[in-house]
C-alpha cells in the first residue's frame, strides 16, 4: 500500500435553504480511488469545480468523507484519534498565501507548526533554520511576511509545512495567485523537496506546464478521476483533454497540430528539447 490510498472516496456538499431544509446535494468527489507511492511527485489536474480541492482536503482530514475512506501512511482518516497524526504526516499548502501565514515574522510563522506539535524550543529553531534553507528563504527569516512577494510567501508556507517533518506535502493550487516568476520558484522548491528530501508531493493545479515532470498525473472531472497515467500518456490524448476544458502544454499542442497536418512526430511531446530533437531527425531523413 502506498503512502496515500483513497478507497471509493465520496463527498457530498449539502445545500440548505434558510429554514435548513435540504435544497440539493452536490457530489463534489465521487468514487475516487488513488494509490500514491512514497517519494512520488503526483499531479492532480482539473478545471474549476472538478472536485480536486475537495479531494485534497480529504488527504489531511480537513473534510470528513461521506463514503469510502482515505488511508494516510496506513492510518484511517475516519478515526478521530488519527487526525493529528494524519495532519502531521500530510502537510498542506493552500492557494492564497496571505490567508495561511500566521506569524508576523517569517521565522515565527515557520515555527508555528512545530510549536503546535509540542517540539522543544531548541529543536524548533533547528527545524526552522533547515526548512527555510530548503526553500531558499533563509535570508528573509527576520522579515515581515507582508513585505514579501507572492512567490516568497508561498515558499514560506511550504517551509512552515516542512518544519513539521511531513512525509507528504499536498499543494492545493499554490501558484494560482502568483506571477510567472513566483510560479517557477514555488514549483522549483517543490521539485527540490521531492528529489533531495524524498518527500511525496501532491500538486493540484490547472497549469499544464507544472505537471510535465510529475511521475503520475490524475485528471479529474465532475468529481471523478477520468484519466491517469504518466504525463506522456495523458498528454498524448489532446482531444480528450480539450473535451474536459483543459489545455495541453504549448509545445505538446504545437507537436499535435504538426502531426495532424502530416508530420510523423511521436505522441505526447512535453518539452521544447524533445520537439527540436524530433524535428531535427525528420530534417535529416
Amino acid at each position: 500500500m502506498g503512502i496515500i490510498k483513497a478507497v471509493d472516496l465520496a463527498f457530498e456538499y449539502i445545500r440548505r435553504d434558510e429554514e435548513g431544509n435540504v435544497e440539493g446535494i452536490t457530489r463534489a468527489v465521487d468514487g475516487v480511488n488513488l494509490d500514491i507511492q512514497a517519494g512520488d511527485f503526483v499531479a492532480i489536474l482539473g478545471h474549476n469545480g472538478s472536485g480536486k480541492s475537495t479531494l485534497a482536503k480529504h488527504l489531511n482530514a480537513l473534510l470528513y468523507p461521506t463514503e469510502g475512506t482515505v488511508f494516510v501512511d496506513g492510518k484511517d482518516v475516519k478515526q478521530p484519534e488519527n487526525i493529528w497524526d494524519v495532519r502531521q504526516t500530510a502537510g498542506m499548502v493552500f492557494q492564497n498565501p496571505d490567508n495561511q501565514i500566521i506569524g508576523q515574522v517569517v521565522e515565527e510563522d515557520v515555527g508555528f507548526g512545530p510549536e503546535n506539535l509540542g517540539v522543544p524550543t531548541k529543536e524548533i529553531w533547528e527545524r526552522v533554520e533547515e526548512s527555510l534553507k530548503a526553500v531558499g528563504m533563509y535570508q528573509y527569516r527576520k522579515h515581515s511576511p507582508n513585505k514579501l512577494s507572492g512567490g516568497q510567501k508561498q515558499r514560506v508556507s511550504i517551509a512552515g509545512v516542512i518544519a513539521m517533518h511531513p512525509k507528504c506535502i499536498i499543494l492545493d493550487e499554490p501558484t494560482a495567485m502568483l506571477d510567472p516568476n513566483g510560479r517557477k520558484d514555488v514549483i522549483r522548491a517543490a521539485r527540490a523537496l521531492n528529489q533531495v528530501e524524498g518527500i511525496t508531493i501532491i500538486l493540484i493545479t490547472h497549469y499544464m506546464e507544472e505537471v510535465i515532470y510529475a511521475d503520475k498525473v490524475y485528471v479529474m472531472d465532475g468529481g471523478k478521476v477520468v484519466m491517469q497515467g504518466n504525463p506522456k500518456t495523458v498528454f498524448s490524448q489532446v482531444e480528450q483533454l480539450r473535451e474536459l476544458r483543459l489545455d495541453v502544454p504549448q509545445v505538446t499542442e504545437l507537436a499535435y497540430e504538426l502531426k495532424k497536418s502530416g508530420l510523423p512526430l511521436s505522441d505526447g511531446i512535453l518539452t521544447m528539447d524533445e520537439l527540436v530533437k524530433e524535428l531535427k531527425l525528420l530534417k535529416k531523413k
Partner: protein
Amino acid sequence: MLRDITLGQYYQTESVIHRLDPRVKLVGTICYIISLFVVNNVWGYLVAALFLALMIHLSNVPFKFMVKGMKAIVFLLLITVIFNMFLTPGEALISFWKLTITKEGLRLAIMMAIRLSFLIVGSSVMTLTTTPNNLTDGMEKLMNPLRKIKVPVHEIAMMMSIALRFIPILLEETDKIMKAQIARGADFESGNIIKKAKAMVPLLVPLFISAFRRANDLAMAMEARCYRGGDGRTKMKPLVYKKADRIGYLVLSIYFIVCLSIGKICEILMGMILGIMMSVG
C-alpha cells in the same frame, strides 16, 4: 503606500529598555500609572518626572516621538483643565463675567494636566520600545494565572496577534476596493458627514465579506498545521527573565516605595531642617 505603515508605534533601535522582558515593561507601566494617582505633593511629581526622564533617556527614542502621543489627547487635556479650573469651588483668584478661577481649581487643573501627560508619555515609552508581538506574549504570560478562573488567556493573545497580522492586509484590501469603486464612479470625497458615511457602505460590505472568507481560510490553514489551542504547545521564543529584568524589577520597586512614602520623607526632612534651624536660631 499602505504597505509601509508601521504597526503600533514601535521605534526600532538598540537600548536597555528595548531588551527588557515585555512583562517587566507592562508591570512597570501599570505601577507608574498607579504611582501617578497616589502621589499628591510636589515632591512626588518631581520623583515621577525624574523617573520618566531617566526611562526616556535610557530608551534611546527621540523625545519628539514621545510627545507625538500627546497630540491625540490635547483636546481631552484642555477640557479637563478648563473644567477643573472653573468648576472647583473654593477661594476665588480671578473672576470675570460669570466665571471664577479658584485657587483650589487651579491647583487641581495643574495636577490633572501633569498626571495625564505623564501617563501618556509613560505608556508610550512602553509601546515605543516593545514590538506588538512581544507585548501580546508578555500579556499572555502575565495573565496566565487567570486561566484558573476560566479566562481564555491563550485564545485572547492569539486573537490579538492575528488581528495585528491582518491589519496591513485588510488596509491594502480597503485601498483596492476603494479604487475599484472609484473606477466605477463612487464618490468618497464630497458631501456632508451623512453623505460620506453612506458612501462607506459599498466599501464596508465587500470588506466584511472578504474578512470572513480570510478568517475561514486561516482557520483551515491553522488546523492543517495541527493547531489545537494552547495546551501542549511549546514556544519558539519563550519569555525568560534575565539579569537585566531582575534589576528592572528592583529599580521599579524602589521607585514605587519612594513615590508612596515621599510625603512622609519630606515631612520628616522638613521637620529636621526646621528643628536644626530653630536650635541654631
